[in-house]
Every structure is written in structure tokens, then in C-alpha cells.
């Protein structure tokens, strides 16, 4: 299923309200991504993020040229999961798996992606093996906009998993997802916006 992503859909996907959880259908979109394992702290994810944005710079440059005023900056997104999902909730970060990703325009194909990576190679310390272009369809998800300090995220997630999902007869189905809408070097902790998203399926 190919869904045209227009402005209204972008707003629905990336700017949910802060008040209550909403359900959205996330269509298939192409992402540039890099995989990671273990704690994402202490620079591990920061390094992958830097590499990812460097690799896609030629595509962003082309997109700005092609799309002009219709160009929309794609935010950083991260998926988090663990083989035993209890490790995720318990914060046992050494058992976490994660993925950094950025959505790309739908006209980007494999050839364009490899060309971008080839051009960026000189700017990267090393090219991670997992750096790739992948189509990803997340499907039905529950999400909310978190506005404020990151330390307040767990309380919201607690409400998601123990109240919203059970009340709506839903189970988590897939990696937990955060979308970072601000550059953390420019926005203070109390004003940061993060989309918290969880793919769901009907409860058994």
C-alpha cells in the first residue's frame, strides 16, 4: 500500500497533541538507518546519529534544491527494544537494542542512497555495516507528544502501558519509538518535544 504523505499526514504523524494518546496508522516510508546494541548513552548513539546525518547530507542537499519551500526537515527517530522486553522497561540498557533513523523523501532509491554514502565516505570516520536505506511500515500506533524533561517520559509511558493500551484492548507490537523534534544543543531540557510512539495490535 502506497500512501501519499501530504502535510496533513505529516502533522498527524509528527505533531500529536500533548494531552492524550492518539492512534495513528503509520504508512510505509523510506528511512536511512543504523543499528546499535547496548546502552545508547555515553556517545554511542551520538556517534551513530552524526554518521547517519553525514551520510544523508547529499540527499538533503538535493531535497532542498528540488523541493524548495516544500522541503520539510526530517527529525531524528530512534527505535528501542530488547530480546526480553522487561529489560527495556527496567532500564537494563546493556541489553537494549536500538536503531537511529531519519525518514527520506519517497523519490530516494538504492542508487541515490549509495551515491550519497559514497560522497559522504570521506567525511565519516567509518561506515557502519548496518547503514542502509530501508522501507519501514510501522502500522497502527499509539502516540503522544511529550513536552518537557526527559526524566518525565517514564511516567507517561507507565500510563500508556498500564492504562491506555489495556483500556483500548491493545497490546504492544514492535519496538518502542521516540522522535526527537528539537536539537538538544539549542533547546533547554524543559522545552524539548519528543513524540512517544508504540506500535500496537488488538489484544488476544
Amino acid at each position: 500500500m502506497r500512501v501519499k504523505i501530504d502535510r496533513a499526514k505529516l502533522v498527524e504523524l509528527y505533531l500529536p497533541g500533548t494531552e492524550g494518546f492518539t492512534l495513528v496508522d503509520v504508512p510505509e516510508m523510506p528511512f536511512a538507518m543504523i543499528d546499535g546494541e547496548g546502552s545508547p548513552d555515553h556517545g554511542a548513539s551520538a556517534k551513530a546519529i552524526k554518521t547517519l546525518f553525514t551520510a544523508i547530507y547529499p540527499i538533503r542537499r538535493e531535497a532542498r534544491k528540488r523541493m524548495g519551500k516544500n522541503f520539510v526537515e526530517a527529525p531524528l527517530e530512534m527505535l528501542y527494544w530488547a530480546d526480553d522486553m522487561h529489560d527495556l522497561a527496567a532500564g537494563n540498557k546493556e541489553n537494549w537494542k536500538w536503531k537511529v533513523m531519519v525518514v527520506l523523501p519517497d523519490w530516494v532509491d538504492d542508487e541515490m542512497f549509495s551515491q550519497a554514502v559514497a560522497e559522504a565516505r570521506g567525511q565519516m570516520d567509518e561506515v557502519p555495516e548496518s547503514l542502509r536505506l530501508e522501507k519501514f511500515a510501522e502500522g497502527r500506533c499509539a502516540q503522544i507528544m511529550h513536552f518537557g524533561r526527559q526524566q518525565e517520559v517514564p511516567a507517561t509511558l507507565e500510563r500508556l502501558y498500564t492504562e491506555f493500551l489495556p483500556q483500548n484492548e491493545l497490546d504492544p507490537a514492535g519496538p518502542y519509538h521516540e522522535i526527537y523534534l528539537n536539537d538538544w544543543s539549542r533547546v533547554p531540557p524543559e522545552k524539548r518535544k519528543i513524540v512517544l510512539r508504540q506500535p500496537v495490535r488488538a489484544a488476544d
Partner: protein
Amino acid sequence: MKGKKLTDSELLVLGLVSEMPRHGYELEQVIDGRGMREWTQIGFSSIYFVLGKLEKAGFVSAEKPAGRKAKKVFSITRSGQDALAAQTAEALGHYRPTFSSVLLGMIHWEVLSREASLAALDARRTAVARELERLERIRFESQPLPDFIEALFDFSEGQLQAEKQWIETTSAYMEAKP
């Protein structure tokens, strides 16, 4: 300083403090990390000098958290925010002419032989091309950049492209002239 115009360095530091409270060393890291010395002259020691001036003017306030080794953290004040907004509008809205050395060179075109003038223009063309490459490399290394900073790079690049084109047109004309 109240009501007076801020210097470029003061405006820059005030802008960084307005993003979030920061201490002096952090400001140094941000200025360095964002490559801000590309377009302003601000040394490490002058950050503290500038902070001192901003504090005296009441545009930032300093707070020393508890703890013996804690560093002074600077936050923007209400009047600092007003000054920052006013000066930003002025910086964006007012045209401040800058004079390129090429103007003085052109005035004296006939001092040199045609060959010498053309050779000099050609050297300028090479220098401009090199600067374009350097800017693109910096942009690449600094990814990801917010859109307004990309636009800032677009501005510099556009100016250089215009200059390159002017050199080519002018050289072609001067060379062909009987």
C-alpha cells in the same frame, strides 16, 4: 550599555545564553562546535569579558550553584531578551554595506597591463572557487544543521557564486576588447 547597540560578540553570546542557561566553558564549546568563529572574532578570554559586560548591563544574570567547584551559570534576563529581539530584527532588517577589495582593484585597472590585470582576476577566480569548496566541506562536516543555518550557508554560497560569475563575464569582456 543599556539602549546602546550591542557588539557582534555581545549579540552572539547573548543569543547562546538565551537558548538555555550556560557557563563560560560551555559557551566556548558551543562557539567552537558550531564553527561560529567563521563569522565573528571572539577569543576564549573575551567570552568572559563579554559575559561581564552583559552582566553589568543587566542582560544576563549569573548564578553560582552550591558546591566548591561549581561554575557560574549565566541566564538571560527579561531586558536581555528585549535587547536580543531588537538587535536581531535590526541585524536582519538593516543593510550594512561591505566593500570588497575588488572595487579598489577595478578602479585602478589601467595601472596594470591587460595581461597582469587578467592574471590577477584569474587568481581571484581560483580563490573564490576554493572558498566555495571550503564552505561546502564545513557544511558537510557540521551535519545536521537546522534549516536557518543551511540558509545562512546558502547566503554565503550565493554571494561567492555571483562573484565567480562576475569574474568570468568581466574577464571574457576585458580579454576580447580590441
